[in-house]
């Protein structure tokens, strides 16, 4: 894990306009990282990404989603949904359960409807996972939470207002795959950000603490 506020030896030594640029210089993205980052749950200095209220000069330092293992349940159900008709529908066709007065196209319709609903199920789950993100920029913390397709929760706070960052892990799977919850307490009363099941929670806490220190130094100077 590179130190996010230490410039690389080749970095431009002219004055920077923000800590995000320091971070970008310290961590140049490689080609492999760029190709696989779009479906990743942990992006450090993501390239080619923006969010709705991003200000000019504001750079994304961390973009987090729920760990990929949290998708296991719906992926497993999808696999079952994909395989089941291959077994079930031939049995239904052979057994003659369907009344004679129904047209032969009823089985085709069942296949169409089944796979259409499976497609919907996959798309909804994927879209909700993909767009539910926590973003840490050089200036603030943003949480975009799509609870369902129609309901969005958007919360943000300045880095200067963050008081405490903790991580919470536990259990066999979480320890094995290194993911957990990150809880951010702000200065405002009862305002708390919770990033659920994000990968590498300790690194997230460390980066946010460094950002808080940097912000504190900047305010003092």
């Amino acid at each position, binding site marked *: 894990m590179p130190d996010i506020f230490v410039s690389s030896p080749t970095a431009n030594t002219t004055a920077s306009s923000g800590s995000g640029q320091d971070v970008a210089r310290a961590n140049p993205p490689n080609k492999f990282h760029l190709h696989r980052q779009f479906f990743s749950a942990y992006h450090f200095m993501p390239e080619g990404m923006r969010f709705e209220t991003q200000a000019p000069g504001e750079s994304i330092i961390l973009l987090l989603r729920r760990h990929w293992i949290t998708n296991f349940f719906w992926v497993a159900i999808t696999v079952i949904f994909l395989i089941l008709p291959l077994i079930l529908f031939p049995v239904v066709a052979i057994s003659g359960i369907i009344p004679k007065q*129904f047209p032969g196209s009823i089985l085709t319709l069942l296949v169409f*409807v089944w796979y*259409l609903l499976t497609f919907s199920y996959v798309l909804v789950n994927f879209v909700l996972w*993909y767009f539910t993100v926590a973003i840490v920029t050089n200036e603030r913390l943003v949480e975009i939470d799509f609870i369902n397709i129609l309901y969005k929760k958007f919360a943000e706070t300045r880095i200067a207002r963050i008081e405490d960052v903790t991580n919470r892990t536990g259990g066999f799977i979480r320890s094995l795959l290194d993911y957990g919850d990150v809880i951010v307490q702000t200065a405002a009363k009862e305002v708390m950000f919770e990033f659920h099941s994000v990968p590498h929670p300790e690194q997230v806490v460390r980066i946010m603490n460094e950002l808080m220190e940097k912000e504190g130094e900047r305010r003092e100077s």
Partner: protein
Amino acid sequence: MTIEQFITTFLQTTPFAIIKILVIILLLLHLSFSFVLMRQTKLMTHVVEAQISPLLYSISIIHLLSSLFVFLWTMIFF
């Protein structure tokens, strides 16, 4: 003829028509859901912009077209 007698006669004589009506209602609901999903995906891609956002939007359009196809197929062939 009471309402119960009418419903019983209707169910006994035209079960296929009932199934067809229910399927069409279901598919109409799904069609509207697909449209909403497409619109919401478009909105989401504006909230978090990534290079694959157009791809996700395209997939949601394919989903809508699939729903429309199944609906039309049911109306014509079922």
